[in-house]
């Protein structure tokens, strides 16, 4: 353990693999800070505000992981899957790129721009590929484009030693590393990006040397999750979601939550509101008091999707194409504040992180446990950005 921590501090990609193996080899609970900003009118913002917002909650992280998700940042490549990949070394990169070329049409690839920042030690090679599934491969697979891409992500993350896809959606991207989140944001030059939605995370793992891939957000396709908490339902959730082709290799709560949300929304067609009723379901005693129609629907969701109830403390921010969702566990065992100003929705672990970037708010509230807070792009904004 000590050797590996030292190795990571000293940097060196050769040791990166060792740390990666360690990260997934045990369950890793962590406390954290989260923050998010969303513009309903699709107004583009630089990444600077979200860095400042998460920075003020420095004390809630311990320097072992930080990260961001940004939506609407790649308008010139909006029809392509933006694959952000950590490669341990050149040989992993060569193997992964060979696979990518066989599977996708790659229209552009480059390293992700970074700048030297004290506090971010040398990590893996960080590459970005804009990709579209090859038509012949896609047709042969009998899958839709999204399922095809998701499986390719699993293929690389499980099958290629030393490469890890940490972002795979369209017109969005995840940026994460070992370090304090504000350092991570500056390392990735987040201020150079413009998006309509940003989420951020500062990690406080209890017993890990930290691995770049283990930082939040965790994502699959365009669904990203930043999460503060430690869920007690982890293994029940994991063993259920793994049935449906989501191997959980990182043993983190966030990974399993991201897969649950992807499964329920993309594969089962639940709305995000319905997903809240499944994952942070109201108590049976509350359901019993509902009007009949509503009661039946809630009962149905809780019964049919019972393996996906998440218990224990959590607050999460979920980013998805055209929207952001905030959700607390049903007892609200983690802090979460929401606020509005004009067309902007802010959600954060602490009010200070919102006030810092917008002191004059229209409304501030603490969503109750299980209350689903969702902001979506207005119709014309959606059309403009994704049409």
């Amino acid at each position, binding site marked *: 353990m000590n050797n590996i921590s030292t190795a990571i501090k000293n940097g060196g990609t050769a040791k990166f693999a060792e740390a990666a193996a360690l990260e997934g080899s045990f369950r890793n609970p962590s406390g954290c800070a989260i923050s998010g900003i969303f513009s309903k009118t699709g107004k583009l913002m630089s990444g600077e505000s979200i860095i400042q917002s998460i920075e003020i909650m420095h004390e809630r992280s311990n320097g072992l992981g930080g990260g961001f998700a940004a939506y609407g940042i790649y308008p010139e490549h909006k029809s392509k899957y933006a694959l952000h990949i950590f490669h341990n070394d050149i040989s992993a990169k060569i193997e992964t790129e060979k696979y990518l070329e066989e599977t996708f049409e790659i229209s552009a690839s480059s390293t992700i721009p970074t700048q030297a920042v004290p506090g971010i030690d040398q990590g893996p090679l960080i590459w970005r590929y804009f990709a579209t599934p090859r038509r012949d491969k896609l047709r042969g697979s009998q899958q839709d484009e999204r399922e095809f891409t998701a499986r390719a992500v699993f293929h690389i993350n499980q099958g290629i030693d030393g490469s890890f896809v940490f972002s795979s959606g369209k017109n969005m991207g995840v940026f994460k590393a070992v370090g304090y989140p504000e350092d991570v944001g500056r390392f990735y030059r987040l201020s150079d990006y413009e998006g309509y939605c940003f989420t951020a995370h500062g990690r406080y793992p209890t017993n890990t040397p930290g691995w770049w891939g283990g930082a939040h957000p965790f994502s699959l396709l365009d669904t990203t999750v930043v999460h503060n908490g430690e869920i007690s339902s982890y293994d029940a959730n994991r*063993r259920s979601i793994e049935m449906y082709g989501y191997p959980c290799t990182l043993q983190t709560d966030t990974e399993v939550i991201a897969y649950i949300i992807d499964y329920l929304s993309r594969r089962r067609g639940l709305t995000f509101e319905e997903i809240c009723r499944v994952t942070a379901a109201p108590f049976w005693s509350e359901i019993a008091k509902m009007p009949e129609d509503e009661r039946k629907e809630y*009962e149905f*969701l809780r019964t*049919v999707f*019972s393996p996906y109830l998440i218990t*224990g403390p959590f607050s999460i921010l979920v980013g998805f194409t055209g929207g952001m969702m905030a959700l607390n566990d049903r007892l609200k065992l983690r802090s979460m504040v929401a606020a509005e100003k004009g067309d902007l929705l802010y959600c954060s672990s602490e009010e200070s992180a919102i006030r810092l970037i917008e002191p004059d708010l229209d409304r501030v509230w603490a969503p109750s446990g299980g209350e689903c807070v969702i902001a979506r792009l207005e119709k014309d904004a959606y059309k403009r950005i994704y049409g």
Partner: protein
Amino acid sequence: MSLNYIYPESEVIRNYDKCICCRACERQCANEVHEYLEEADKMIADDAKCVDCHRCVSICPVRALKIVPTDHDFKKNTSWKKKDIYEVYKQADSGGVLLSSMGNPNEFPVYWDKILLNASQVTNPSIDPLREPMETTVFLGAKAEELTRGENGKLIPITSPQLKLDLPVMFSAMSYGSISYNAHESLARASQEAGTFYNTGEGGLHEDFYKYGGNTIVQVASGRFGVHREYLETAAAIEIKMGQGAKPGIGGHLPGKKVGPDVSRTRMIPEGTDAISPAPHHDIYSIEDLRQLVFSLKEATAYKKPVIVKIAAVHNVAAIASGIARSGADIVAIDGFRGGTGAAPTRIRDNVGIPIEVALAQVDSRLRDEGIRDKISVVAAGSIRSSADVIKAVALGADAVYIGTSALLALGCHLCRTCNQGKCNWGIATQRPDLVKRLNPDIGYKRLVNLMTAWKHEIEEMMGGMGINSIEALRGNRLMLRGVGLTDVELRMLGIKHAGESA
């Protein structure tokens, strides 16, 4: 003494300083152990007749009695124990198959006792069930639904038929015949009050108990005793009994002396005849036949009731359960080798089957590996002794458990394991009216409800400690379990880590 003499297993010890010769023990013992010697003004006991049921001990007003295992034994021999020797004597004498009752009493590992639970510290708060809601409600039935939406996009909430349990514990199959009318009444009423279900076993449903149909699971076993249209329609669910943990591979046997007028009518068999159910169902010689019976029963009840298939835990239980999940059944019940029985051949009971802990873990894992765990609920049975066993079963992967022996203990059973003799002094495993009336259903049902209430509280405490406030978040949550003193193979079979291994 002759060759067939067998020294009594237990000795009745009477404290003559305390005994007042009230003769209560004499009146209460159906085995006629106690006798009053008028000339000596003294109670005596015939140890040979004693079954060690503690009835006399419990009712003695001056606490003058105790029953102790005898210290009389053969010359020490590791290979040939007293039991082995006496069983040879018995069989040499009778030429018969040895019969036993209740679960396997021999020394096999009890894995429940080698599994420990987790609790929250620091990073995750425990939840106090006295101050926060704590949910133990379980729905049993298939969950793999295709979602349908109405024109407005609203979900249309149609599910396969479900059984709603207020806690993940049901009373397992015990037939009217093997146990008494009053025992059945106690179970039926307790199920209603505790929000759970009891199971008729293969003995049919007495007409007086149709009113508890909403809490009744009716069994269809290989003998088809007592199965008719109204029986199926009254029930909340139907269970096809393919096997029983105490006697895998064989059918049931109710001795004719237990078949009085009421039992005869309920089972639809002639009075005084042995009720012998065949070893297999003679219309089920393979899985495709089971599927036909499952759907026959569903057709007969308009697809409104879940169908349970109960099997004994045998070596390839996981593959069998997987077949059952694909045969249209809504629930599979797995009965481990320590499960109880009213009567079973001793050799079968003591030597056939596998432990429920391992069987359950294997079934749950297999159903998940095949991606069909949501198609079926899993009920574990066979020596669930406490709320801790329930919690561990749920964390291994069970949706709920069945309890038989624990329920009978609540009704007064003292585990003397002589149910097959039909002379149960506690009024449970008997049809003799004078004995049956000793079990007062008004008290019996209350004691069962108490047991369920107590277990529910304990389940809530343990869940709260783990930071879990709803039972479904515990189901299959094996990271909450750790083994102690188990080998690598045992840990692998149970799918859990050893104590000390972090998550």
